């Protein structure tokens, strides 16, 4: 759990992102938003995301990105976690490289018969700002709560009981199956397995996935039996109770005019 390898580290023996982080809050830095009710934070995150995605002007999108960075900072998101944004930025790079050439408009740069338009670049930047803003908002407002409270919040906001149960069970099992995976991977490494781009490696990794599934089937049966022994009846009993306080209402009503103002300035 202490180690947090980035998702893009090739041929790393670890499971990409640190799976243990699901169980608790990010806890990497002090979380100043922790005083607010998780439900309020989930609602505001959704409202912010809708607002950000509807923005059309570059300046407002940039402002939203700055706001998102502030939220992520307040939420205690560490710089290390931003490493997860690499795949996103890779996709953004593709857009920045292709959009200027496919959007018609005033030529900015002439490359042979291709002309890069300013409009295309603006669209690419707009998407870059919006995509990063939404992810940072999610990190700061929702991710920083931790997975358990997030699902509890979703459940009390009316998400389907079965889905919430599946989420909670899956969260727990990702930790356990992840530990199982790390054990098997260690055993492979002890036998000097180094993943390479060849038939042997692919077969070994295929068998690894297969074995993970086989053990998960057995584990699932044991879990189901154990739950039945303890009287599982399909009901979702939430262990955490949230207390909606005046601060949460204030936060909600403070955020609404802010977001509406952003949209108004954007459309004018």
């Amino acid at each position, binding site marked *: 759990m202490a180690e947090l390898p980035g998702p893009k580290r090739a041929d790393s023996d670890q499971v990409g992102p640190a799976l243990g982080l699901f169980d608790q809050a990010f806890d990497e830095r002090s979380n100043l938003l922790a005083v607010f009710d998780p439900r309020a934070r989930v609602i505001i995150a959704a409202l912010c995301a809708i607002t950000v995605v509807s923005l059309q002007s570059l300046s407002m999108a940039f402002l939203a990105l700055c706001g998102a960075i502030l939220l992520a900072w307040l939420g205690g998101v560490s710089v290390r976690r931003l490493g997860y944004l690499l795949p*996103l930025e890779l996709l953004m790079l593709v857009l920045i490289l292709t959009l200027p050439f496919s959007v018609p408009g005033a030529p900015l740069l002439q490359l042979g018969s291709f002309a890069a338009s300013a409009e295309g670049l603006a669209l690419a930047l707009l*998407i870059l700002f919006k995509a990063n803003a*939404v992810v940072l908002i999610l990190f700061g407002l929702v991710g920083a709560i931790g997975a358990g409270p997030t699902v509890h919040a979703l459940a009390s906001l009316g998400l389907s009981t079965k889905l919430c149960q599946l989420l909670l069970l899956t969260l727990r099992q990702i930790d356990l199956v992840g530990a199982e995976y790390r054990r098997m991977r260690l055993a492979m490494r002890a036998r000097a397995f180094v993943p390479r781009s060849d038939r042997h490696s692919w077969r070994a990794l295929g068998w690894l996935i297969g074995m993970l599934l086989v053990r998960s089937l057995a584990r699932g049966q044991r879990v189901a039996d154990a739950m039945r022994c303890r009287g599982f009846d399909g009901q979702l009993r939430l262990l955490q109770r949230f207390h909606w306080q005046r601060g949460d209402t204030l936060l909600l009503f403070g955020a609404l005019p802010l977001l509406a103002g952003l949209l108004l300035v954007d459309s004018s």
Partner: protein
Amino acid sequence: MAHIPDGVLSAPVLVAGALVSTGLLAIALRKLREADLPQAAVLAAAFFVSSLISVPLGPSSVHLLLNGLMGLLLGWAALPAIFVALLLQAVFFGFGGLLVLGVNTMNLALPALAVALLLRPLLQRLLSLAPRQGSSVLAQAVPVAPAAPVASADSAAAVDAGPDPDAGEGATVQTPAESVAEDFISPRQRHQAFGAGVAAGVLGVTLTAVMLSGSLLLSGEPFAPAARVIAITFVPLALVEGLLTGIVVSFLLRVEPALLRLEVMRHVH
């Protein structure tokens, strides 16, 4: 790159994706019994962990989508598993976004459903043939040609002979032979299972690539070059995914065929 971030797609595409995913998810959740929830959760977790394994390919490495394998093994239950994985990845790893969750779910789930509908019955038939094909190998030892009748006669003989103390020798010889025949998986079956896996993997990735490019194209003409670039990156992924899915399925056929007929198990319970 199967995760489209927020801010790219147009509103109609987002709404369509959300509606389709919500509808499919509702159906899938209704089909999922409460008693099966733990099992589904553990398998969803296993797929989640497996999709984080980086598979080396040339100088680089890829992560598998596994939606073909999920469709093949889980059927409709693949949908909530995919949704749960995408939700967690969006909130905790920043893969994808919030409003595109519907589109991203649809892009992975519809191919999984296609595999479940097209290839799952094929695999089930392959499995239901398993005992007979196994016995046909036994029958080859017997000089009489027609495989199936001889095999059934053999098994009948074994069952008759079992409890009969007078048939002593016949019972001890035939019962192990019969059980070996039941467990034996012919190379042909293994190849067929491998083929079904390859087809599932390739179909899952290819359909996802098509849907991904489609959702980009429907959002605006300027996205065409980007959609093409992304589609090209899916070609090597489809090959590796097909190969690995094939390996996994033929492995499961030998090690734990119960995983290949989860639905059948549910009726037994």
